[in-house]
Protein backbone atom coordinates (compact mmCIF):
# COMPACT_ATOMS: atom_id res chain seq x y z
CA UNK A 1 0.00 0.00 0.00
CA UNK A 2 1.20 3.50 -0.69
CA UNK A 3 1.30 6.16 1.98
CA UNK A 4 -1.24 8.83 2.67
CA UNK A 5 0.32 12.14 3.54
CA UNK A 6 -1.37 15.11 5.17
CA UNK A 7 0.16 18.55 4.65
CA UNK A 8 -0.62 20.45 7.85
CA UNK A 9 -2.48 23.72 7.39
CA UNK A 10 -0.56 26.54 9.03
CA UNK A 11 -2.25 29.74 10.20
CA UNK A 12 -0.59 32.48 12.20
CA UNK A 13 2.50 30.32 12.63
CA UNK A 14 0.66 27.43 14.28
CA UNK A 15 -1.09 24.29 13.13
CA UNK A 16 -4.66 25.08 12.17
CA UNK A 17 -7.48 22.95 13.57
CA UNK A 18 -8.46 21.76 10.08
CA UNK A 19 -5.32 19.61 10.08
CA UNK A 20 -7.15 17.18 12.40
CA UNK A 21 -10.00 17.01 9.87
CA UNK A 22 -7.47 16.14 7.17
CA UNK A 23 -6.30 13.20 9.29
CA UNK A 24 -9.88 11.89 9.42
CA UNK A 25 -10.20 12.33 5.65
CA UNK A 26 -6.89 10.51 5.14
CA UNK A 27 -8.11 7.62 7.28
CA UNK A 28 -11.19 7.38 5.07
CA UNK A 29 -8.80 6.66 2.20
CA UNK A 30 -7.17 3.94 4.29
CA UNK A 31 -4.23 3.73 6.64
CA UNK A 32 -2.75 6.15 9.11
CA UNK A 33 -1.27 9.21 7.47
CA UNK A 34 2.09 10.89 7.84
CA UNK A 35 1.63 14.56 8.73
CA UNK A 36 4.11 16.92 7.08
CA UNK A 37 4.36 20.30 8.77
CA UNK A 38 5.93 23.02 6.61
CA UNK A 39 7.79 25.27 9.05
CA UNK A 40 10.76 27.49 9.69
CA UNK A 41 10.86 26.48 13.36
CA UNK A 42 10.41 22.77 14.00
CA UNK A 43 8.71 23.28 17.36
CA UNK A 44 5.57 24.27 15.44
CA UNK A 45 5.19 20.60 14.49
CA UNK A 46 4.91 19.37 18.08
CA UNK A 47 1.21 20.24 18.17
CA UNK A 48 0.58 17.73 15.35
CA UNK A 49 2.04 14.86 17.38
CA UNK A 50 -1.04 14.65 19.56
CA UNK A 51 -3.50 14.19 16.67
CA UNK A 52 -4.76 10.64 17.01
CA UNK A 53 -4.51 8.45 13.95
CA UNK A 54 -1.31 9.82 12.45
CA UNK A 55 1.58 7.40 12.10
CA UNK A 56 4.33 9.99 12.14
CA UNK A 57 4.94 13.72 12.00
CA UNK A 58 7.61 15.23 9.80
CA UNK A 59 8.62 18.80 10.60
CA UNK A 60 9.71 19.99 7.17
CA UNK A 61 12.06 22.79 8.09
CA UNK A 62 13.10 25.38 5.54
CA UNK A 63 13.46 29.13 5.14
CA UNK A 64 11.31 28.68 2.03
CA UNK A 65 8.29 28.45 4.34
CA UNK A 66 8.80 32.03 5.54
CA UNK A 67 6.26 33.24 3.04
CA UNK A 68 4.28 31.53 0.40
CA UNK A 69 5.74 30.90 -3.01
CA UNK A 70 4.03 28.14 -4.95
CA UNK A 71 7.15 26.88 -6.72
CA UNK A 72 9.32 27.00 -3.61
CA UNK A 73 6.82 25.28 -1.35
CA UNK A 74 5.93 22.57 -3.85
CA UNK A 75 9.58 21.68 -4.47
CA UNK A 76 10.46 21.71 -0.76
CA UNK A 77 7.53 19.47 0.14
CA UNK A 78 7.94 17.17 -2.85
CA UNK A 79 11.56 16.62 -1.88
CA UNK A 80 10.66 14.97 1.41
CA UNK A 81 7.15 13.56 0.94
CA UNK A 82 7.07 9.85 0.12
CA UNK A 83 5.12 8.58 -2.86
CA UNK A 84 1.40 8.28 -2.21
CA UNK A 85 -1.77 10.29 -1.95
CA UNK A 86 -1.39 13.75 -0.46
CA UNK A 87 -4.13 15.70 1.32
CA UNK A 88 -4.22 19.45 1.84
CA UNK A 89 -6.79 21.87 3.11
CA UNK A 90 -8.96 23.57 0.47
CA UNK A 91 -7.94 27.12 1.34
CA UNK A 92 -6.97 29.22 -1.71
CA UNK A 93 -3.27 28.90 -0.88
CA UNK A 94 -3.37 25.18 -0.20
CA UNK A 95 -5.37 24.48 -3.36
CA UNK A 96 -2.66 26.29 -5.29
CA UNK A 97 -0.01 24.21 -3.55
CA UNK A 98 -1.97 20.99 -4.16
CA UNK A 99 -2.10 21.71 -7.90
CA UNK A 100 1.64 22.44 -7.98
CA UNK A 101 2.63 19.29 -6.11
CA UNK A 102 0.38 17.12 -8.30
CA UNK A 103 1.84 18.58 -11.48
CA UNK A 104 5.35 18.11 -10.13
CA UNK A 105 4.63 14.42 -9.62
CA UNK A 106 2.69 13.99 -12.85
CA UNK A 107 -0.38 12.88 -10.94
CA UNK A 108 -3.83 14.42 -10.80
CA UNK A 109 -5.35 16.78 -8.28
CA UNK A 110 -8.93 16.66 -7.02
CA UNK A 111 -9.99 19.87 -5.28
CA UNK A 112 -12.63 20.75 -2.68
CA UNK A 113 -13.44 17.22 -1.61
CA UNK A 114 -16.41 16.93 0.77
CA UNK A 115 -16.89 13.15 0.88
CA UNK A 116 -14.64 10.12 0.58
CA UNK A 117 -15.87 6.58 0.03
CA UNK A 118 -13.12 4.10 -0.73
CA UNK A 119 -11.38 5.44 -3.82
CA UNK A 120 -14.33 7.68 -4.69
CA UNK A 121 -14.20 11.39 -3.94
CA UNK A 122 -17.06 13.88 -4.13
CA UNK A 123 -16.70 17.63 -4.70
CA UNK A 124 -19.20 20.39 -5.46
CA UNK A 125 -19.22 21.55 -9.10
CA UNK A 126 -21.12 24.30 -10.92
CA UNK A 127 -20.80 26.47 -7.81
CA UNK A 128 -22.45 23.85 -5.65
CA UNK A 129 -25.42 23.37 -7.98
CA UNK A 130 -24.32 19.75 -8.48
CA UNK A 131 -21.94 17.26 -6.91
CA UNK A 132 -19.32 15.30 -8.83
CA UNK A 133 -17.99 11.94 -7.72
CA UNK A 134 -14.74 10.70 -9.23
CA UNK A 135 -12.83 7.46 -8.84
CA UNK A 136 -9.06 7.43 -8.35
CA UNK A 137 -6.98 4.74 -9.98
CA UNK A 138 -3.63 5.84 -8.61
CA UNK A 139 -2.05 8.31 -6.22
CA UNK A 140 -3.41 11.85 -6.33
CA UNK A 141 -3.31 15.13 -4.47
CA UNK A 142 -6.60 15.97 -2.78
CA UNK A 143 -7.72 19.21 -1.18
CA UNK A 144 -10.40 18.83 1.45
CA UNK A 145 -12.99 21.44 2.45
CA UNK A 146 -13.03 22.59 6.05
CA UNK A 147 -15.88 21.80 8.47
CA UNK A 148 -16.92 18.67 6.60
CA UNK A 149 -14.94 15.86 8.20
CA UNK A 150 -14.91 15.44 11.97
CA UNK A 151 -11.66 16.42 13.59
CA UNK A 152 -9.50 13.48 14.66
CA UNK A 153 -9.31 13.54 18.47
CA UNK A 154 -6.19 14.70 20.22
CA UNK A 155 -4.40 12.78 22.93
CA UNK A 156 -2.18 10.70 20.68
CA UNK A 157 1.58 10.85 20.71
CA UNK A 158 3.62 10.00 17.67
CA UNK A 159 7.21 10.75 16.83
CA UNK A 160 8.22 14.04 15.27
CA UNK A 161 11.10 13.79 12.83
CA UNK A 162 12.76 17.06 11.87
CA UNK A 163 13.85 17.06 8.24
CA UNK A 164 15.62 19.98 6.59
CA UNK A 165 14.47 20.70 3.09
CA UNK A 166 15.00 23.36 0.46
CA UNK A 167 13.16 24.63 -2.54
CA UNK A 168 13.61 27.23 -5.25
CA UNK A 169 11.62 30.37 -4.61
CA UNK A 170 10.40 31.74 -7.93
CA UNK A 171 8.81 35.00 -6.76
CA UNK A 172 9.81 37.65 -4.22
CA UNK A 173 7.55 39.53 -1.82
CA UNK A 174 8.34 43.24 -2.08
CA UNK A 175 5.95 44.50 0.48
CA UNK A 176 3.33 43.19 2.83
CA UNK A 177 0.26 45.34 3.29
CA UNK A 178 -1.49 44.40 6.50
CA UNK A 179 -5.24 44.76 6.62
CA UNK A 180 -6.26 47.95 8.32
CA UNK A 181 -8.56 46.14 10.72
CA UNK A 182 -7.66 43.33 13.08
CA UNK A 183 -10.73 41.47 11.92
CA UNK A 184 -10.27 38.21 10.06
CA UNK A 185 -10.66 37.97 6.32
CA UNK A 186 -13.75 36.07 5.15
CA UNK A 187 -11.47 33.42 3.64
CA UNK A 188 -9.92 32.75 7.06
CA UNK A 189 -12.89 33.02 9.41
CA UNK A 190 -15.04 30.34 10.93
CA UNK A 191 -17.93 32.74 11.44
CA UNK A 192 -18.94 35.33 8.84
CA UNK A 193 -21.57 38.04 9.00
CA UNK A 194 -22.30 39.55 5.60
CA UNK A 195 -24.29 42.56 4.52
CA UNK A 196 -26.05 43.18 1.23
CA UNK A 197 -27.74 46.03 -0.54
CA UNK A 198 -30.46 45.85 2.11
CA UNK A 199 -28.03 47.47 4.58
CA UNK A 200 -28.96 50.72 2.83
CA UNK A 201 -25.59 52.41 3.24
CA UNK A 202 -21.99 51.38 3.87
CA UNK A 203 -22.11 53.30 7.14
CA UNK A 204 -24.58 50.74 8.46
CA UNK A 205 -21.92 48.04 8.23
CA UNK A 206 -20.76 49.25 11.67
CA UNK A 207 -23.65 47.20 13.08
CA UNK A 208 -22.27 44.09 11.40
CA UNK A 209 -18.75 44.95 12.59
CA UNK A 210 -19.94 45.28 16.16
CA UNK A 211 -21.41 41.78 16.06
CA UNK A 212 -18.33 40.45 14.28
CA UNK A 213 -16.10 41.81 17.02
CA UNK A 214 -18.32 40.33 19.70
CA UNK A 215 -18.07 36.78 18.36
CA UNK A 216 -14.77 36.88 16.47
CA UNK A 217 -16.31 36.86 13.03
CA UNK A 218 -15.27 38.31 9.68
CA UNK A 219 -17.48 40.78 7.82
CA UNK A 220 -18.44 39.91 4.26
CA UNK A 221 -20.64 41.47 1.60
CA UNK A 222 -22.70 40.72 -1.47
CA UNK A 223 -21.59 41.91 -4.86
CA UNK A 224 -24.37 44.48 -4.93
CA UNK A 225 -22.89 46.01 -1.78
CA UNK A 226 -19.35 45.94 -3.18
CA UNK A 227 -20.36 47.36 -6.55
CA UNK A 228 -22.61 50.06 -5.10
CA UNK A 229 -20.42 51.34 -2.31
CA UNK A 230 -16.80 52.38 -2.72
CA UNK A 231 -16.22 51.83 1.01
CA UNK A 232 -16.92 48.09 0.75
CA UNK A 233 -13.84 46.50 -0.88
CA UNK A 234 -13.95 43.52 -3.21
CA UNK A 235 -11.90 41.55 -0.69
CA UNK A 236 -15.13 41.29 1.33
CA UNK A 237 -17.20 39.88 -1.53
CA UNK A 238 -18.60 36.40 -1.11
CA UNK A 239 -19.85 34.52 -4.15
CA UNK A 240 -19.21 33.47 -7.69
CA UNK A 241 -16.84 36.35 -8.44
CA UNK A 242 -15.80 36.82 -4.84
CA UNK A 243 -14.62 34.33 -2.27
CA UNK A 244 -15.94 30.85 -1.69
CA UNK A 245 -16.33 30.36 2.04
CA UNK A 246 -17.14 27.36 4.15
CA UNK A 247 -17.54 28.61 7.72
CA UNK A 248 -19.33 27.00 10.62
CA UNK A 249 -21.75 29.91 10.67
CA UNK A 250 -22.76 32.38 7.95
CA UNK A 251 -25.12 35.21 8.83
CA UNK A 252 -26.62 36.95 5.77
CA UNK A 253 -28.16 40.34 6.46
CA UNK A 254 -30.11 42.23 3.79
CA UNK A 255 -28.95 39.75 1.15
CA UNK A 256 -31.55 38.33 -1.25
CA UNK A 257 -29.71 35.08 -1.92
CA UNK A 258 -29.01 35.30 -5.66
CA UNK A 259 -27.56 32.15 -7.18
CA UNK A 260 -24.13 33.78 -7.54
CA UNK A 261 -24.08 34.71 -3.86
CA UNK A 262 -25.18 31.22 -2.85
CA UNK A 263 -22.32 29.88 -4.98
CA UNK A 264 -19.89 31.29 -2.46
CA UNK A 265 -21.54 30.31 0.82
CA UNK A 266 -24.13 27.58 0.41
CA UNK A 267 -21.88 24.92 1.91
CA UNK A 268 -21.58 26.81 5.21
CA UNK A 269 -22.47 24.52 8.09
CA UNK A 270 -25.15 26.82 9.54
CA UNK A 271 -26.80 29.72 7.74
CA UNK A 272 -28.77 32.50 9.41
CA UNK A 273 -30.73 34.91 7.21
CA UNK A 274 -32.12 38.26 8.26
CA UNK A 275 -34.27 39.82 5.56
CA UNK A 276 -37.42 41.90 5.58
CA UNK A 277 -38.85 40.02 2.58
CA UNK A 278 -40.25 36.63 3.61
CA UNK A 279 -39.97 35.47 -0.01
CA UNK A 280 -36.24 36.20 -0.35
CA UNK A 281 -34.55 33.08 -1.80
CA UNK A 282 -31.91 33.13 0.96
CA UNK A 283 -34.54 31.75 3.38
CA UNK A 284 -34.65 28.49 1.43
CA UNK A 285 -31.06 27.90 2.47
CA UNK A 286 -31.25 29.19 6.02
CA UNK A 287 -31.16 27.00 9.10
CA UNK A 288 -32.52 29.96 11.04
CA UNK A 289 -34.46 32.61 9.14
CA UNK A 290 -35.62 35.86 10.67
CA UNK A 291 -38.13 37.88 8.68
CA UNK A 292 -37.38 41.37 9.96
CA UNK A 293 -35.50 44.50 9.06
CA UNK A 294 -31.89 44.55 10.18
CA UNK A 295 -32.76 47.71 12.07
CA UNK A 296 -35.03 45.59 14.29
CA UNK A 297 -33.01 42.39 14.43
CA UNK A 298 -29.35 43.42 14.72
CA UNK A 299 -29.56 45.31 18.03
CA UNK A 300 -31.25 42.29 19.62
CA UNK A 301 -28.70 39.92 18.12
CA UNK A 302 -25.83 42.13 19.25
CA UNK A 303 -27.01 42.48 22.82
CA UNK A 304 -27.88 38.79 23.19
CA UNK A 305 -24.52 37.68 21.82
CA UNK A 306 -22.69 40.21 23.96
CA UNK A 307 -24.49 38.82 27.00
CA UNK A 308 -23.55 35.27 26.05
CA UNK A 309 -19.89 36.13 25.54
CA UNK A 310 -19.61 38.10 28.78
Amino acid at each position, binding site marked *: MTETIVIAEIAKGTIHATTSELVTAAQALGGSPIIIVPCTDASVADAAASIQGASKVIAAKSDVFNHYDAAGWASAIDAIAPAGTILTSATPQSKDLAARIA*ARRNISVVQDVVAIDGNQLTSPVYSGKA*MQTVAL*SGPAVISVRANVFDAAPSGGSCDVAVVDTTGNMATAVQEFMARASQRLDVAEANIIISGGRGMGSPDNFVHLEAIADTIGAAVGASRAAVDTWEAIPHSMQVGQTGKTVNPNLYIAVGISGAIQHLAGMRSSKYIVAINKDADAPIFQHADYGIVATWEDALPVLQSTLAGMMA
Partner: protein
Amino acid sequence: MVNIIVLVKQVPDTNAKIVVSGDRVDLSAVKKVMSPYDEFAVEAALQHREANGGEVTALTLGGAGADKVLKDAKAIGVDHIVRIDSDGDHDSNSLQTAIASVLSELGAEVVYCGKSAADTGAGSTGPGLAERMGWASVSNVISVAFDGGITVVAPSEGGDARISVPIPAVISCDKGNMKVRKPNVKGIMQAKKAKVEVKTVAIQPSSVAIVAHTMPPAKPAGKSYEGGAAAAEVARLLRDEANVI
Protein backbone atom coordinates in the same frame (compact mmCIF):
# COMPACT_ATOMS: atom_id res chain seq x y z
CA MET B 1 7.78 42.26 -27.00
CA VAL B 2 6.17 39.57 -24.94
CA ASN B 3 4.44 36.45 -26.18
CA ILE B 4 1.35 36.43 -23.97
CA ILE B 5 -1.17 33.60 -23.78
CA VAL B 6 -4.51 33.87 -22.03
CA LEU B 7 -6.40 30.70 -21.19
CA VAL B 8 -10.15 30.93 -21.55
CA LYS B 9 -12.79 28.33 -20.80
CA GLN B 10 -16.38 27.99 -21.84
CA VAL B 11 -18.71 27.27 -18.93
CA PRO B 12 -22.45 27.34 -18.24
CA ASP B 13 -23.81 30.81 -17.55
CA THR B 14 -23.65 31.30 -13.81
CA ASN B 15 -27.38 32.02 -13.78
CA ALA B 16 -28.18 28.71 -15.45
CA LYS B 17 -30.11 25.99 -13.71
CA ILE B 18 -28.06 22.79 -13.64
CA VAL B 19 -29.97 19.54 -14.07
CA VAL B 20 -28.72 16.02 -13.61
CA SER B 21 -30.28 13.38 -15.84
CA GLY B 22 -29.27 9.80 -15.23
CA ASP B 23 -25.89 10.15 -13.60
CA ARG B 24 -24.53 13.11 -15.56
CA VAL B 25 -25.28 16.82 -15.66
CA ASP B 26 -27.25 17.69 -18.77
CA LEU B 27 -25.89 20.94 -20.19
CA SER B 28 -27.57 20.68 -23.59
CA ALA B 29 -30.07 23.43 -22.88
CA VAL B 30 -27.69 25.67 -20.99
CA LYS B 31 -26.25 28.93 -22.32
CA LYS B 32 -22.45 28.91 -22.35
CA VAL B 33 -20.24 31.88 -21.58
CA MET B 34 -16.63 32.73 -20.87
CA SER B 35 -15.86 31.75 -17.28
CA PRO B 36 -16.17 35.03 -15.31
CA TYR B 37 -12.61 35.08 -13.92
CA ASP B 38 -11.20 34.54 -17.41
CA GLU B 39 -12.53 37.97 -18.31
CA PHE B 40 -10.09 39.42 -15.79
CA ALA B 41 -7.30 37.31 -17.25
CA VAL B 42 -8.05 38.67 -20.74
CA GLU B 43 -7.99 42.19 -19.34
CA ALA B 44 -4.64 41.62 -17.60
CA ALA B 45 -3.18 40.13 -20.78
CA LEU B 46 -4.28 43.13 -22.84
CA GLN B 47 -2.86 45.55 -20.25
CA HIS B 48 0.43 43.65 -20.39
CA ARG B 49 0.53 43.99 -24.17
CA GLU B 50 -0.22 47.68 -23.94
CA ALA B 51 2.54 48.23 -21.39
CA ASN B 52 5.33 46.15 -22.93
CA GLY B 53 4.34 45.40 -26.51
CA GLY B 54 3.86 41.93 -27.88
CA GLU B 55 0.94 39.77 -28.88
CA VAL B 56 -1.85 38.07 -27.00
CA THR B 57 -3.15 34.64 -27.98
CA ALA B 58 -6.31 33.28 -26.40
CA LEU B 59 -6.16 29.52 -25.98
CA THR B 60 -8.94 27.13 -25.08
CA LEU B 61 -9.44 23.38 -25.05
CA GLY B 62 -12.75 21.99 -26.18
CA GLY B 63 -14.93 20.96 -29.06
CA ALA B 64 -15.94 23.23 -31.96
CA GLY B 65 -18.64 24.79 -29.80
CA ALA B 66 -15.91 26.39 -27.70
CA ASP B 67 -14.90 28.60 -30.64
CA LYS B 68 -17.46 31.10 -29.38
CA VAL B 69 -15.46 31.88 -26.26
CA LEU B 70 -12.39 32.50 -28.45
CA LYS B 71 -14.38 34.85 -30.68
CA ASP B 72 -15.51 36.69 -27.54
CA ALA B 73 -11.86 37.12 -26.54
CA LYS B 74 -11.01 38.27 -30.07
CA ALA B 75 -13.79 40.86 -29.93
CA ILE B 76 -12.30 42.26 -26.74
CA GLY B 77 -8.91 42.62 -28.41
CA VAL B 78 -6.66 39.53 -28.40
CA ASP B 79 -4.51 39.04 -31.53
CA HIS B 80 -4.79 35.30 -32.13
CA ILE B 81 -7.21 32.54 -31.16
CA VAL B 82 -6.27 28.88 -30.80
CA ARG B 83 -8.32 25.85 -29.80
CA ILE B 84 -6.93 22.50 -28.73
CA ASP B 85 -9.51 20.19 -30.21
CA SER B 86 -10.93 17.81 -27.66
CA ASP B 87 -14.29 16.69 -26.44
CA GLY B 88 -14.72 14.75 -23.27
CA ASP B 89 -13.44 14.89 -19.72
CA HIS B 90 -9.79 14.85 -18.74
CA ASP B 91 -8.21 14.76 -15.33
CA SER B 92 -5.85 17.58 -14.38
CA ASN B 93 -2.77 15.59 -15.31
CA SER B 94 -3.90 14.80 -18.86
CA LEU B 95 -5.35 18.25 -19.41
CA GLN B 96 -2.30 20.13 -18.22
CA THR B 97 0.11 17.91 -20.13
CA ALA B 98 -1.79 18.69 -23.34
CA ILE B 99 -1.98 22.44 -22.69
CA ALA B 100 1.68 22.62 -21.61
CA SER B 101 2.78 21.04 -24.89
CA VAL B 102 0.88 23.70 -26.83
CA LEU B 103 2.27 26.50 -24.65
CA SER B 104 5.77 25.32 -25.55
CA GLU B 105 4.89 25.06 -29.21
CA LEU B 106 3.47 28.60 -29.19
CA GLY B 107 6.55 29.93 -27.41
CA ALA B 108 4.54 31.36 -24.52
CA GLU B 109 6.39 33.66 -22.11
CA VAL B 110 3.56 34.77 -19.85
CA VAL B 111 0.27 32.96 -19.29
CA TYR B 112 -2.81 34.53 -17.74
CA CYS B 113 -5.83 32.57 -16.60
CA GLY B 114 -8.79 32.96 -14.28
CA LYS B 115 -8.28 31.92 -10.65
CA SER B 116 -10.70 29.06 -11.20
CA ALA B 117 -13.23 27.99 -13.79
CA ALA B 118 -16.85 28.54 -12.84
CA ASP B 119 -17.78 24.92 -13.61
CA THR B 120 -15.22 22.90 -11.64
CA GLY B 121 -14.15 25.71 -9.30
CA ALA B 122 -10.87 23.85 -8.97
CA GLY B 123 -8.25 26.47 -9.84
CA SER B 124 -5.66 23.80 -10.63
CA THR B 125 -4.77 24.65 -14.20
CA GLY B 126 -2.71 27.81 -13.65
CA PRO B 127 -0.37 26.56 -10.92
CA GLY B 128 -0.24 23.09 -12.50
CA LEU B 129 0.89 24.48 -15.85
CA ALA B 130 3.49 26.66 -14.17
CA GLU B 131 4.96 23.64 -12.43
CA ARG B 132 5.08 21.65 -15.65
CA MET B 133 6.77 24.53 -17.46
CA GLY B 134 9.15 25.13 -14.55
CA TRP B 135 7.84 28.67 -14.22
CA ALA B 136 6.89 31.04 -11.42
CA SER B 137 3.22 31.45 -10.62
CA VAL B 138 0.97 33.53 -8.43
CA SER B 139 -2.72 32.72 -7.97
CA ASN B 140 -5.70 34.80 -6.86
CA VAL B 141 -4.04 37.96 -8.18
CA ILE B 142 -6.06 41.13 -7.55
CA SER B 143 -3.91 43.65 -9.42
CA VAL B 144 -1.09 43.65 -11.96
CA ALA B 145 1.51 46.27 -12.90
CA PHE B 146 4.21 46.13 -15.55
CA ASP B 147 7.67 47.60 -15.22
CA GLY B 148 9.75 45.32 -17.40
CA GLY B 149 8.79 42.46 -15.14
CA ILE B 150 5.41 41.89 -13.58
CA THR B 151 4.39 43.05 -10.13
CA VAL B 152 1.20 41.61 -8.74
CA VAL B 153 -0.83 41.96 -5.58
CA ALA B 154 -2.35 38.81 -4.08
CA PRO B 155 -3.94 38.02 -0.73
CA SER B 156 -1.57 36.85 1.95
CA GLU B 157 -2.37 35.93 5.55
CA GLY B 158 -3.55 39.04 7.37
CA GLY B 159 -3.50 41.30 4.31
CA ASP B 160 -2.11 41.50 0.80
CA ALA B 161 1.38 41.03 -0.56
CA ARG B 162 3.01 42.91 -3.44
CA ILE B 163 5.04 40.30 -5.27
CA SER B 164 7.54 40.61 -8.09
CA VAL B 165 7.19 37.83 -10.59
CA PRO B 166 10.00 36.92 -12.97
CA ILE B 167 9.10 36.03 -16.56
CA PRO B 168 8.21 33.33 -17.64
CA ALA B 169 5.24 32.98 -15.34
CA VAL B 170 1.61 32.02 -14.95
CA ILE B 171 -0.67 34.60 -13.33
CA SER B 172 -4.15 33.47 -12.31
CA CYS B 173 -6.52 36.34 -11.84
CA ASP B 174 -9.22 37.23 -9.36
CA LYS B 175 -11.52 40.19 -9.91
CA GLY B 176 -9.73 42.60 -7.59
CA ASN B 177 -9.60 46.13 -8.90
CA MET B 178 -9.70 45.12 -12.55
CA LYS B 179 -12.31 46.76 -14.75
CA VAL B 180 -12.83 44.71 -17.87
CA ARG B 181 -13.25 46.42 -21.23
CA LYS B 182 -16.25 45.60 -23.38
CA PRO B 183 -15.97 44.69 -27.06
CA ASN B 184 -16.65 47.52 -29.53
CA VAL B 185 -18.36 47.19 -32.91
CA LYS B 186 -15.05 46.98 -34.77
CA GLY B 187 -13.87 44.21 -32.46
CA ILE B 188 -17.06 42.26 -32.93
CA MET B 189 -16.77 42.55 -36.72
CA GLN B 190 -13.15 41.40 -36.65
CA ALA B 191 -14.05 38.50 -34.38
CA LYS B 192 -16.70 37.33 -36.84
CA LYS B 193 -14.12 37.06 -39.59
CA ALA B 194 -11.32 35.72 -37.42
CA LYS B 195 -10.20 32.16 -37.98
CA VAL B 196 -9.68 29.84 -35.08
CA GLU B 197 -6.42 27.93 -35.34
CA VAL B 198 -7.25 24.35 -34.35
CA LYS B 199 -4.57 22.12 -32.86
CA THR B 200 -4.77 18.39 -32.39
CA VAL B 201 -2.78 17.01 -29.50
CA ALA B 202 -2.64 13.43 -28.26
CA ILE B 203 -4.19 13.51 -24.80
CA GLN B 204 -3.07 10.81 -22.40
CA PRO B 205 -5.70 8.72 -20.60
CA SER B 206 -6.97 9.98 -17.25
CA SER B 207 -6.40 8.26 -13.92
CA VAL B 208 -9.30 10.12 -12.33
CA ALA B 209 -12.63 9.21 -13.89
CA ILE B 210 -16.03 10.79 -13.31
CA VAL B 211 -18.33 8.24 -11.72
CA ALA B 212 -21.49 10.29 -11.33
CA HIS B 213 -23.04 13.70 -10.98
CA THR B 214 -25.76 14.13 -8.40
CA MET B 215 -27.87 16.98 -7.14
CA PRO B 216 -26.64 18.46 -3.86
CA PRO B 217 -28.32 16.90 -0.85
CA ALA B 218 -31.46 18.82 0.00
CA LYS B 219 -31.13 20.84 3.13
CA PRO B 220 -33.80 20.12 5.75
CA ALA B 221 -36.15 23.07 6.11
CA GLY B 222 -34.84 25.53 8.66
CA LYS B 223 -36.63 27.28 11.48
CA SER B 224 -38.20 30.59 10.63
CA TYR B 225 -39.20 33.51 12.79
CA GLU B 226 -41.05 36.79 12.38
CA GLY B 227 -39.80 40.02 13.87
CA GLY B 228 -36.47 41.26 15.13
CA ALA B 229 -37.02 40.11 18.71
CA ALA B 230 -36.56 36.51 17.51
CA ALA B 231 -32.86 37.27 17.07
CA ALA B 232 -32.44 36.57 20.80
CA GLU B 233 -33.88 33.06 20.39
CA VAL B 234 -31.73 32.45 17.31
CA ALA B 235 -28.59 33.55 19.15
CA ARG B 236 -29.42 31.09 21.92
CA LEU B 237 -29.99 28.26 19.42
CA LEU B 238 -26.70 29.02 17.71
CA ARG B 239 -25.04 28.40 21.03
CA ASP B 240 -27.11 25.53 22.45
CA GLU B 241 -28.41 23.69 19.37
CA ALA B 242 -25.89 24.36 16.62
CA ASN B 243 -22.92 24.78 18.97
CA VAL B 244 -21.28 27.29 16.68
CA ILE B 245 -20.88 30.17 19.13
